[in-house]
């Protein structure tokens, strides 16, 4: 009886976390993971096993941090995979829907460091506040704000110079980097 009650309580707690499943899948998809739904499912399984660690009032930074680790692990595994007969890398990390990006913006984003890019995208695409994004990256909010400011400046400079720069390679891939 007691275990049943506890189980219901845990499920209720988890339901609030689980409501972010779509957001986590979107995060993985935006970071170029081919199997974003599987990543999201794994994130949720980890969250269930470690529910005591998940801040229930604001689980998204924790969920995105876990998703990032899984996407990175997937990318690392992929980097060891040999090429196919056609010479194309198998399972190499893909750019996040680069074809749908404004090409100039895509190139400018790719030219940033992975951490600068992640700082910008957590705020712009994942709609996190700087404090939430800082939590997701495991850095303090002040440091994050400085990083975000610099990343914006760098992106702005890249965009300003893009029109006259033929070296921009629109086929370059996004890469992720551990924070």
């Amino acid at each position, binding site marked *: 009886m007691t275990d049943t009650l506890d189980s219901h309580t845990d499920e209720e707690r988890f339901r609030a976390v689980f409501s972010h499943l779509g957001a986590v899948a979107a995060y993985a998809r935006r970071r170029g993971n081919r199997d974003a739904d599987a990543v999201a499912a794994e994130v949720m399984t980890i969250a269930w096993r470690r529910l005591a*660690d998940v801040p229930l009032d604001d689980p998204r930074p924790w969920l995105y941090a876990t998703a990032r680790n899984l996407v990175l692990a997937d990318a690392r595994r992929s980097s060891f995979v040999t090429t196919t007969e056609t010479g194309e890398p198998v399972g190499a990390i893909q750019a996040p829907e680069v074809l749908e990006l404004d090409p100039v913006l895509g190139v400018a984003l790719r030219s940033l460091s992975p951490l600068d890019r992640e700082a910008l995208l957590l705020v712009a*695409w994942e709609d996190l506040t700087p404090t939430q994004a800082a939590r997701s990256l495991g850095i303090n909010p002040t440091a994050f704000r400085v990083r975000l400011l610099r990343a914006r400046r760098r992106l702005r400079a890249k965009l300003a110079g893009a029109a006259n720069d033929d070296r921009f390679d629109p086929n370059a891939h996004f890469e992720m980097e551990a924070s």
Partner: protein
Amino acid sequence: MSNRPIMSRLRRANPVPRPRDGDAADLFARITALPADPRLEGPRRRRPLRRRRAVVLAFATLLLAALLASTAVAVSHWIGGDVVEAPVTRHEYLDAQKQLTLPPGVEWPDPLEIGLSSEPDNSVTSRGAGGSMAVLISMNAWECYWAEALRTGEGAAARRAQAKLNALLTNNVLEAPAGAHENWTPTPLPTVPFAVFAHDGGLDFVRGTYDQAAAGDPRGVAQSCRANAPR
């Protein structure tokens, strides 16, 4: 160009503007059919035995990390080579005593009693471990003092212990980031003695114990006092 257009342009470029809200009831059911996090304390799971275990586990993990991570030379590979030999750890421990306090009548354990030799002994420890030991010893001593003050109804002593422990939590205790390696150390190293708690709820449990004591219930700090005495 201001920052606002840059961020607006980025937002408009979001390749997945809206998460899909598919029916995931099946996934939810499959996940919740798995064993839940055993550390969770539902309303009916709060048993003294679990509390004791949690307190003991939290401190034992820290002490073990500080004391026993030393014997393997391979440790240097875990923590990127930032390791020191026993005399340095001993020096850190003694140095930390100048910055930390103990309750009246309590003395710092002799370094040898807690395994800190003054001679190199082929062991290495992560930098800061000596200070970490001192922080944990100070915490334990103030917990004992608090428990006794609550038991005997000495309000001033209880408030003093509470203030000391809160200061230790604020100034000398850190929590590793979620998912961090178990030997995570802050960068740069703090200039004060510090102890690192894993991001596993242990620190929250300690805080909860202190909240309980602040409300007049000494059981948590008394258990921790008994369980985590350095000698």
